[in-house]
């Protein structure tokens, strides 16, 4: 690995750590400077992630041994196409959310918003880069601890109640994660993911039962993070109770679960694992299909726009995981495209909902008929675009994503189920969002008077930030060719883990440096 690339890989983890600590320790009472540093950090991360993605698109897998302790004894950071793509997605989302949080003054509502945000980015970047299973656990904890703080930011009884649920369920999940990690270590004697892949492929038949148990326990943990039914109950409460800016950032949190499922599913339990190959698939697929149905039906149960946004996140996770769970290279490319789309679309929806709620006074984001509010024409347009995006109608990228997924799973034996579920639920989603839109925008037109915008901070800038995310969806659509070429190459790389393994372990044999 060239020194420039290794510096960038480490910088993706170190930069938020250092800046988060500096803001926490020295800039507690200097909001303007913290904002500047936070925005600078997010912008720098976008640049770093873009450079890494350009490098990774060449097809090489880079491995960085922390402290120069060689794998499998030390911890490695690994950069391949998938991690580079996830880093870029995280950075772009974080920048948009950070701008929104600053212009609307969300970061004034409580202490330590900026340090927590940076630590959240540290956890996310670390989880996407690490090549070690226990290290993945540690980064999961880092991002969870930061997310507890962000979730509770601003406080209030509703938020605290949802916070207790979210924290407890994630702590139980962490315990399960350790059980899975411990079992794998006990059986194979390693925690390096590349080394695990090699050892599991060579595992004697007697050990395979325990390895399968460990693999399925890990699947449960990642499914919990990905809000797969029946492990989704924490999500609507938590996302609907927190501030919308934080919920928009959390759009990437469920994708961490999906990322971990993809990584362990294709690397550790990949094709070479023999009888253990893709063992999570048969369990994930039915759960994913039910998740789609539950997520889109939940849209009708929602009483506020925020709950609707939360349920649509669940629905889109179901679509994503149904494409992942067939574990085929031709379905994985579309799934990765859908990761990009659903993250941006979910976040955009949360931001648009927040813009609407801020202008409706006491009506907030409740699905009630209230008087007109300022900028309602503009916002109805944005809401329409965000709804089209999340439901998956043309012309935005959700349609392309779903179309690619339907095409990708065609060869799978379960294709009929996936097709039927995705097509029917899309119709349900359209109905639900049409109902919400007509209640909030159309019926309000018949009522006299207008809600005055009281202390509306960042009136234009907030709209611009949400529009930026929607423009991201448009860019995904227009740049559909190059983006799908990249995701297909990523899928091909994922299903040939030998390259990853050689990049991590090969250096041991060569006695590098």
């Amino acid at each position, binding site marked *: 690995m060239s020194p420039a690339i290794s510096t960038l890989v480490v910088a993706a983890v170190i930069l938020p750590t250092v800046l988060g600590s500096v803001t926490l320790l020295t800039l507690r009472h200097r909001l303007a400077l913290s904002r500047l540093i936070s925005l600078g950090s997010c912008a720098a991360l976008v640049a770093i992630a873009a450079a890494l993605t350009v490098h990774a698109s060449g097809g090489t897998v880079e491995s960085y041994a922390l402290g120069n302790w060689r794998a499998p004894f030390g911890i490695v950071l690994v950069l391949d196409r998938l991690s580079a793509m996830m880093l870029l997605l995280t950075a772009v989302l974080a920048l948009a959310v950070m701008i929104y949080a600053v212009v609307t003054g969300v970061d004034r509502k409580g202490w330590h918003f900026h340090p927590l945000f940076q630590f959240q980015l540290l956890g996310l970047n670390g989880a996407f880069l690490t090549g070690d299973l226990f290290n993945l656990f540690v980064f999961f904890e880092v991002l969870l601890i930061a997310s507890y703080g962000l979730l509770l930011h601003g406080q209030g009884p509703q938020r605290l*109640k949802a916070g207790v649920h979210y*924290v407890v369920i994630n702590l*139980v999940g962490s315990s399960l994660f350790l059980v899975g990690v411990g079992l794998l270590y006990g059986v194979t004697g390693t925690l390096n993911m590349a080394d695990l892949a090699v050892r599991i492929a060579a595992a004697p038949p007697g050990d395979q039962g325990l390895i399968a148990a460990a693999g399925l326990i890990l699947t449960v943990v990642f499914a919990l993070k990905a809000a797969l039914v029946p492990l989704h109950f924490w999500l609507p409460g938590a996302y609907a109770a927190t501030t919308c800016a934080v919920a928009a950032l959390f759009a990437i949190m469920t994708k961490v679960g999906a990322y971990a499922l993809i990584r362990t599913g294709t690397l550790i339990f990949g094709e070479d694992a023999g009888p253990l190959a893709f063992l999570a698939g048969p369990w994930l697929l039915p759960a994913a299909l039910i998740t789609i149905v539950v997520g889109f039906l939940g849209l009708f149960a929602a009483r506020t726009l925020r709950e609707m946004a939360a349920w649509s996140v669940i629905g889109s996770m179901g679509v994503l995981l149904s494409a992942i769970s067939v574990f085929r290279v031709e379905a994985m490319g579309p799934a990765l495209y859908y990761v990009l789309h659903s993250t941006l679309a979910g976040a955009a929806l949360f931001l648009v909902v927040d813009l609407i709620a801020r202008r409706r006074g006491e009506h907030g984001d409740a699905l009630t008929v209230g008087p007109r509010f300022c900028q309602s024409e503009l916002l109805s347009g944005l809401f329409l675009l965000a709804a089209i995006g999340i439901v998956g109608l043309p012309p935005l990228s959700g349609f392309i994503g779903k179309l690619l997924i339907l095409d990708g799973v065609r060869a799978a034996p379960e294709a009929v189920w996936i097709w039927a579920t995705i097509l029917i639920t899309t119709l349900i989603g359209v109905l639900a969002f049409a109902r919400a839109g007509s209640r909030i925008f159309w019926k309000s037109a018949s009522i006299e008077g207008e809600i005055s915008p009281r202390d509306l901070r960042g009136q234009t800038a907030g709209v611009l930030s949400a529009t930026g995310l929607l423009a991201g969806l448009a860019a995904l659509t227009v740049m559909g060719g190059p983006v799908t070429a990249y995701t297909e190459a990523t899928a091909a790389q994922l299903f040939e883990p030998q390259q990853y393994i050689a990049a991590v372990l090969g250096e041991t044999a060569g006695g590098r440096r």
Partner: protein
Amino acid sequence: MTLELLVASAIAVLTAAGVYLVLRGRTFPVVLGLAFLSYAINLFLFAMGRLVINRPPIYDKAAESYTDPLPQALVLTAIVIAFGMTAFVVVLALRTYLEIGTDQVDGREGGGDRP
């Protein structure tokens, strides 16, 4: 044999107690349950390095065999994280109690089990 039985049953009892308490309706038992679960997990991780007595963990010329140092490092990390988390959950539970006025996890008095 006896050592293995002792450790295994200790893990089993701690896990059972932890799961039972986590499923209670009030925050204090839930916090206790999380603590029990983390103790069980720490023991479990430790046992995953195999139970060996009176052996050095790192290189020693006189030693015939070694104990595995890695699970001990893992357990240390897990203890630190669990400690921080328990402290956080206690504060969160207390804050919720003061704000909502009940320690029932759903915030509804009478919705869960009576103390």
